[in-house]
């Protein structure tokens, strides 16, 4: 990464050459991203403020009010706000499940077990085969829910809830396995993180009297924390663009429907893009680590934290020792 320096090195021939080679290597992508991403984004924004006609090339017809397309997405298309709300609620419900599930699986796979590669193979398999058409075939068969959970009991318990909460929860349970199928990459990312924790750290904690539970909260969780953020972002992106997403199907059908038209679809997809962007931003702000300004501060904070934990453990040990002595004293009497 570029270092922040106050001095400006002279523009030598060598530096210019490096710039040139750098751009040469990334040139295909720069051209591609400029046409297919940057320009396309601008164009799609432009479409959404006009009425797009495709008679003999692209024609943009001005609207009475430039925001007409956006307004009619919410007024005319009653499905859109509902689908959007369902997507958001579904995301809020699914995200913690996927993250917790993949962390648990990663912890299990990281412990000393036999046939680890066999289990790893099973948990990674859905990454290869979980696609829109396959998932919808399986959902149609009703095999997407966990077989042991009696759904009817659950649904009668939940049926007292209002519709807009009941519906996503019902969805969640009827597709639980397929939701869990979205955790393959996340498991691997957690696993890679867990393997980086030096085992000496756990041993030291054990000698100091920490229980497994305590070492999980004090050692494991802080180490995988950056991975929780990474996995959350990854999960949101895959869920937001994945093949089973209903909004995407809606945008698709609206865009290519004869009566509604391209600009309408463009407006809709821009609204969706903004909402996904906001969701990602919220996730980032909630889950990021508050970065200390200086390296020293981080070290200092870590030391303070360690000292606190140590003091707590010592107090606990002393308490246990006192109890033991008291018990032994009583037994001696």
């Amino acid at each position, binding site marked *: 990464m570029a270092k922040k320096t106050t001095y400006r090195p002279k523009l030598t021939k060598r530096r210019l050459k*490096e710039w040139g080679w750098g751009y040469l290597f*990334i040139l295909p992508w720069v*051209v*591609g991203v400029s046409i297919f991403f940057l320009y396309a984004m601008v164009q799609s924004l432009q479409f959404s403020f006009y009425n797009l006609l495709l008679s003999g090339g692209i024609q943009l017809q001005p609207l009475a009010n430039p925001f007409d397309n956006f307004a009619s997405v919410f007024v005319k298309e009653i499905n859109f706000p509902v689908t959007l709300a369902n997507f958001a609620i579904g995301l809020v419900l699914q995200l913690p499940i996927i993250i917790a599930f993949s962390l648990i699986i990663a912890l*299990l796979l990281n412990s000393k077990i036999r046939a680890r590669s066999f289990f790893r193979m099973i948990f990674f398999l859905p990454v290869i085969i979980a696609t829109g*058409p396959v998932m919808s075939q*399986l959902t149609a*068969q009703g095999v997407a829910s966990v077989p042991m959970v009696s759904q009817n009991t659950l649904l009668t318990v939940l049926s007292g809830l209002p519709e807009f909460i009941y519906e996503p929860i019902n969805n969640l349970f009827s597709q639980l396995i397929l939701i*869990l199928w979205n955790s393959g990459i996340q498991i691997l990312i957690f696993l890679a993180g867990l393997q980086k924790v030096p085992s000496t750290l756990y041993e030291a904690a054990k000698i100091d009297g920490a229980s497994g539970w305590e070492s999980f909260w004090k050692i494991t969780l802080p180490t995988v924390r950056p991975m929780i953020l990474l996995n959350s972002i990854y999960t949101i992106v895959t869920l937001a663009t994945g093949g089973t997403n209903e909004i*995407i199907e809606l945008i698709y059908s609206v865009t290519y429907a004869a009566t509604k038209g391209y600009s309408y679809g463009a407006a809709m997809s821009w609204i969706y893009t903004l909402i996904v962007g906001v969701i990602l931003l919220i996730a980032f702000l909630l889950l990021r680590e508050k970065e200390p300004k200086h390296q020293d501060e981080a070290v200092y904070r870590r030391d303070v934290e360690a000292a606190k934990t140590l003091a707590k453990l010592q107090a606990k040990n002393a308490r246990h020792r006192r109890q033991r002595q008291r018990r032994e004293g009583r037994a001696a009497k």
Partner: protein
Amino acid sequence: MKAKTAETREARRDRFRKLMLGSTEKRGVLMSIVVYVLLITIAFIYMYPILYMLSRSFMEKSDLLDASAKWIPSTVTLKNYSDAIATMDYWNSLAKNLYLAAVPTLCQVFICSMVGYGLARYNFPLKKFWMGVLILSFLLPTQTTALPNYLLFSRLKLVDGSIRPFLLTAILGQGFKSVLCILIFFNFHRQIPQSLVEAAEIDGAGHLKAYFGIAIPLSAAAIVVVTLFSFVWYWNETYLVRMYLGYGTTRSTGLTTLMLELQRFEDSYNSTFDARASSVTSTNKLNDAIRMAGTMLSIAPLMIMYFFLQKRFVESVDRAGITGE
């Protein structure tokens, strides 16, 4: 005498407890049982849809309705598979799909390797800006850019069911999920010691020679991962494939993929076997067993590939730094 047996009994009980509950050094048997039961249960739940699909796809129609034959078919039949093969025009579609997935994958791997190397190795103005654009193009849903790109392709007369839109996007680094490919290469090349490449340059190797002669051979692991994943992504994508191939194309006129065939399975079935015209009680009616056979067939090539290469898939993910620290 009595005291002694009591003592040994106590010692034995202690040993037993240690074995069951474990000590600080070793995990107890009970804990191990919990771990394995948990793993096996979750693995079963995870595989449940696939196992169900597999068993259903061999069932005869009478078994589908028979509740007693939930898992094991009373007679194993291959007719579902032959029907599904006819419906999807399987061998033809498979060949087209292999072509459509493999060729863009190769382009994508080469271009992404170059771009990742360029971003990792060189410093140039606006580098941070381009990195930001890279991340942004991954985060935002492709639906926003899909429409203008479709219009562009159709103006260039590329949307005719050929491979050309796939090649164009792959060569310009805009293939399916190419951002992830670029990031994998970027991370990988960043970890390679710069001194290796610089030493080669001092020895008189040019920039291109340093890339082809040193960087590419060193990044073999990343190349394998990216190739496998790209192939899977090209195989599985439907939204953009539908767009690139043109919405109206039929199987006979242009390229197709097995996922697209699976998506329109019902329609193809009805036209292949003329089932809609015949009555509801017709023996030709599409049933779940045929659907499951079709689903199995469409993922079979990937499954076979996975079972041979799964070590490569799983191990290299963390070696190639998909974790991106």
